[in-house]
Each structure stands twice: as C-alpha cells, then as structure tokens.
C-alpha cells in the first residue's frame, strides 16, 4: 500500500498508528505492571513473562538489554514503558533521559537546569 510520507521531528518519536500496531504486545505487557503481582512475576523470570504476552525476539532483546531507544523502535509507548522503568526497574526519568541521550545522569540533569536560564 502506498502511504503518504510522514512528518518526522528529529529526536522525537511519535506514538502513532504504526507504533501502536507494532508495539501492542509490548505495551500490553507494560500495562499489566499496574499490578504488583505482575511486576513481581516479571522480575522472577523476565523472558518467560515477555513470552506470555507474545513479545517477539526484537522486543524481548530490547527488554533484556534495557535498550530504551530500542524499545521505542519496536513500538513501545512512553507512558507504558514508564511503568516498566519506574514501577519495575526503579529508574527515574533522569535515568531514562541519560540512557537515551548518551549523557551521564548528572549531565542530563544539568541540561534540564540549563533550560531554565
């Protein structure tokens, strides 16, 4: 199917129809982390839990390697990934920011402060 070219914004991935289709299983797994029992089950065997939700190999690899940009490329929506990052892995948004930008956490925090000047 020929589709119109999408507008892209550098460094700002858009969670659109394509991402929602690609990432449904991944996002559904992350949505399950609204329950502590499910978070605990994930922690006890990450890969088994991923397979239970039907994640494909690329998605499972992005999970096990904590590849945040990779998780977005395989359809992860940030509000759902936030449940994995915050609720399960105990990372805050500056940790996540640092992981995606190649900065240290302190560098990332300094960048945020600098935005106020």
């Amino acid at each position, binding site marked *: 199917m020929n589709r119109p070219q999408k*507008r892209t*914004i*550098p*460094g*700002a*991935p*858009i*969670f*659109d*129809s394509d991402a*929602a289709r690609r990432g*449904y299983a991944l*996002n*559904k797994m*992350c*949505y399950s*982390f*609204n*329950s*502590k029992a499910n*978070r605990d089950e994930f922690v006890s065997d990450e890969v088994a839990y991923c397979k239970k939700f039907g994640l494909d190999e690329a998605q499972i690899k992005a999970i096990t390697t904590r590849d*945040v*940009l990779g998780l*977005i490329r395989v359809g992860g*929506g*940030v*509000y*759902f*990934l*936030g*449940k994995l990052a*915050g*609720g*399960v892995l*105990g990372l*805050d*948004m*500056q940790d*996540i*920011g640092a992981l*995606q*930008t190649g900065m240290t956490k302190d560098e*990332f925090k300094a*960048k*945020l*402060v600098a*935005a*106020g000047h």
Partner: protein
Amino acid sequence: MAKIVGIMTTSHVPALGRAIHLNLQQDPYWKPFFDGFPPIHEWLERVKPDIVVSCYNDHGLNFFLDKQPTFAIGTAPELISTDEGWGIPSMPSFPGAEDLAWHIRDSLIRDDFDMLTCQEMLVDHAFTLPMALMWPDQKWPVKSVPVCVNTVLFPLPSARRCFKMGEAIGRAIASFPEDAKVLVVGSGGLSHQLEGERAGFINKEFDLKFMDSMVNDPQWATQFSDLDLVEKTGNEGVELLNWLVARGTVPGPVKVVHSSFHIPISNTAAATMLLEPV
C-alpha cells in the same frame, strides 16, 4: 445555577506524588514548585468551590490501547485512585459529581462532541495530583467530573477541537439548573519530553508565550497541529491541550489570581496558574 468560579491549571509530574508522600514540599528542589500553592489554598478557602471539572489525560490506568477514546467523561459515583505502576502512592477515592457529569455528558453529545461515557472510572496522577496540590490533607471538599483527553496515541484531538470542547463544557455548566460553584482544572504540561534522542527538551520561550496567551489571547495555541506542538513543546508538552479545554470553558476575559513557572521539576517546565472569570 451552576457558575464557573475559576480555572486552575498545573503540571502533574509523577515524581510530585512521591514528593508529597515524603513531605518534601520545603526541600530546595521541590520548594519552587510547591510555593505556587499557598495563594491557591487561600483562594480556595475564600471561594469554596463545590465541584471540580478536571480536564486531564490518562496514562494507561483507566484506558489501555485496546480501547483508546479521544474524549471521555466520568459519570461514576466514585473515582478511584489505585496502583498505576509508576510507584506513586494512591489516594483516597474522589466522590463523583454525578448529576453535573451526566448533564455535561448529555449536553456535549448534543453539541456534536462524541464522548465516551465511564460509569466506573480509575483516575491516575494527572487527575489526583492537582487535587492533592489544592487540598494537601486529601480530604476532598468537592465532588468531581473527570474529562479525559487522549494524549497517548497520535493523532491527538486538535488544539482547536480541544478549545471548542471547553467552550461546550462551559455552556453545559451554565445551563445546569442547580446552584454550584465550579472550579475547572487543566492538568499537564508545560514543555517536556521523556522519550527519544531529544529527551529532556524544554522550551521556556514557548511556555511563557503560552502562559501569556492563557490570559490575553486564549485561542493563540489553537493554530498548532499535534505535531507542531510536539516540535515546540516536546512529546509530552502536548498535555497543554488540557489547559486549552479548561480555558475554553471561560472564553471571555479572565484575571490572574496566581501564576508561577519553574524549570525543572523532573524533566518538566512546571507551571501553575489560577484564573478568575472577569
């Protein structure tokens, strides 16, 4: 007759939930944000609204992608705060303003806004944090009507459409036959971006212009598409759509009771405004 007595807009950074839980309001990092609220507490004590109509976005608590509404309204008798997976402590549940909620729902649908209706509803930090910021003892002296805007799955409802829905909510409130003082809340923003190589993006200049427009030129931001807003305010800066719904309920002139702006809280340009119809 029901009457809108004010519009309160504020950021709803999840980390605020933890800061409230740990009583960090006077901590140097958090203080510049929490210091915005004593003037609002004084206003609330004086004006005593009966009902809050809260315009916010769900982040995967009440809705998942299996069913993702563009606009939804909660008519539930009880609005429940629960585990949302982000590690934010839950709060006491909120009484729903059922009569007004059903009235707004009926009125919006007759006004061509195709609302999804929720007779049971879970509310996440975007709803609960503004309430806890306004009433820190978490003993809610108001009933609430939640109005939910999709900011999860693009395309989003346009800024123009959000403002028009706000106008329709304003008309619905004005035609509600019972006496009630209504405070409209707009939750979210301002500029921030959590994901991607541009994570940490903040646009102070745009935010200040937007806050000025909330007072002096309320339809200014309706010129922007959803992707324009991503470019200018970051992926999650689009939550300013909730501010536009709230501002639309009082399309005429307003006066500023309070306004504050601080960068950063977590990854966010954190802003709070309290406006009164003139």
